[in-house]
């Protein structure tokens, strides 16, 4: 499958009053056509930072280095002009809260056709027709009526569908979805996940799915990268990573979740401690203070993301290595 997005050694540093703080470092991954690529991690792990860095949406004072190659062009360092062409047209994004990502004062038609006309320079009626097509694709009943309505007329699930339709207006190759279903009811979530899956099957759309919910990852992501303290610490095919996790952090995350068929009386085992803030990052492996397998070298040196079969792991200890 064709590689649409190739990210290598992506790093973001932030200039603060007390000095340079590294937000993400050495991030590598590839997204293929028709693939749903998962980025997992807790809040503050850098997962959103990564995509914002690629799209040039970080505020002033942020320094991005590394490569993010899309269609042969490196997005890092591409001026704002170039990025504006790509954003919305080739790479689009939906966010967690459709209430704030859709403009409350514009009709659905306006929101959907504005950037369509900006990127593709088409007339109003052509844009309108396309908008109706899109609303049908995301299964909004009565698309014509919907165009005249405002976001507050719709439920959360519908608004998220509309946000997806808006994002797809210019037929982007990559859709970035940042916690798209976190704020939705679980049955509504099922609908949105199905929609994303259908879209990638039918149109070859690649989706970058960012969420902390490992259950959602299991349902929809083909491959998964787990972030911790701004670095990728494990990646590979989703079912592999989540059924046979090898990094202690991934393992800890899974153990902390209530197991649907597990012993009910056993208390949940949360990970001790909290993820470090970017300005207070431990030396060596950022996870070592919370890791039960840590040894001296974990504190001394930064683990490298090694390729092991179809898995990548940043843990030289590899405590859950199966007997091969």
């Amino acid at each position, binding site marked *: 499958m064709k590689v649409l997005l190739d990210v290598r050694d992506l790093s973001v540093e932030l200039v603060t009053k007390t000095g340079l703080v590294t937000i993400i470092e050495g991030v590598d991954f590839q997204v293929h056509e028709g693939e749903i690529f998962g980025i997992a991690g807790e*809040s503050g792990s850098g997962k959103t930072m990564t995509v914002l860095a690629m799209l040039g949406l970080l505020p002033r004072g942020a320094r991005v280095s590394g490569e993010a190659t899309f269609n042969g062009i490196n997005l890092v360092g591409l001026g704002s002009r170039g990025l504006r062409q790509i954003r919305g047209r080739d790479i689009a994004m939906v966010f967690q809260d459709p209430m704030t990502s859709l403009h409350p004062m514009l009709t659905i038609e306006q929101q959907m056709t504005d950037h369509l006309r900006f990127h593709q320079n088409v007339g109003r009626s052509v844009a309108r027709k396309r908008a109706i097509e899109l609303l049908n694709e995301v299964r909004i009943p009565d698309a014509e009526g919907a165009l005249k309505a405002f976001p507050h007329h719709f439920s959360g699930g519908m608004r998220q569908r509309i946000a997806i339709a808006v994002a797809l207006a210019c037929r982007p190759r990559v859709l970035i979805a940042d916690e798209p279903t976190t704020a939705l009811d679980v049955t509504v979530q099922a609908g949105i996940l199905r929609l994303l899956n259908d879209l990638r099957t039918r149109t070859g759309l690649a989706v970058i799915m960012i969420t902390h919910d490992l259950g959602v990852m299991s349902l929809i992501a083909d491959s998964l990268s787990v972030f911790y303290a701004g670095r990728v610490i494990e990646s590979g095919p989703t079912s592999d990573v989540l059924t046979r996790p090898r990094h202690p952090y991934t393992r800890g995350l899974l153990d902390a979740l209530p197991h649907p068929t597990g012993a009910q009386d056993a208390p949940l085992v949360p990970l001790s401690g909290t993820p470090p803030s*970017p300005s*207070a990052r431990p030396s060596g492996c950022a996870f070592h203070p919370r890791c039960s397998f840590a040894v001296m070298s974990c504190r001394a040196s930064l683990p490298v993301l090694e390729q092991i079969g179809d898995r990548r792991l940043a843990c030289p200890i590899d405590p859950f290595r199966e007997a091969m």
Partner: protein
Amino acid sequence: MESSTRVFGLSDADVVAAHGIRRSRTRTGSHWNQPLAVAGISLSVAWLIVAVAAPWIAPHDPLAQDSLRFLAPSVSHPFGTDELGRDVLSRVLWGARISIPLAFLLVGVAGIIGCVLGALAGYFGGVIDELVMRAADLVFAFPTIILAMAVVAALGPSLENAVLALIAVRWPAFARIVRGLILAMKDSEYVYSSRLLGASSLRVLLADVMPNVAGPVVVFAALDVGTAILLLAGLSFLGLGARPPTPEWGSMVADGTLAFNYWWIGTFPGLAILTVVLAYNFVGDTLRDALDPRSSRAVESRV
């Protein structure tokens, strides 16, 4: 509205932890060490001392017309003399004895009336709320100074009546603040929790609501002292407050406008008003920053 730190995934706790600050402090120390705070407090304390000690530190009797008229500032009369040969410095110092205590009195009484009425309106709502708020609206409909002028004119110009008029005109501001705060708090979950734990309405008002209300009210009162001094001076300037020969700053400025060539007559009282009002404004600002246990200014200055 999220602070810039949140965009980067850093939580407030992260920032606080990373920079080792507690929220009640800014980088250079507590709120009270800030330059404006220090200036404000020293000035207001200095003026309070002047107000108390004027009889002893004033070089001359403020009402004595002994000296030559219109003397420029000199060693014997650092602020010169006015149109009746009175020492301007002494008059300015004695003026503090008038303006500052009256301003405190004014704010105190207006504050108490306003808080009580506002609390009743906010907590009980209904008819009481309507009555209080309509009365307040009536006052708000007019510019403060115009309304005060009208009241004083009706009662007869005198310093006492000026104070009464200003009390009548200032209490609604307090009432509105307190009512707003109480309305916001009435339906908060911690109030419901207290009531579910058996607290009576009175207990809720005193133990749960007052601590949240006291802070903003004290801040507003501090800031209002400056306004009170200005309004009092304003009324006196217009001839509706202090009667001659009372050394009230506003009337002194008024006298000064009649003798522009002799600039010292009006300028020094004017400067006095300026410095006192500024001082209390700084104190009010500092109080506001210090009293809020979650002062966001401490965090904003970090990144």
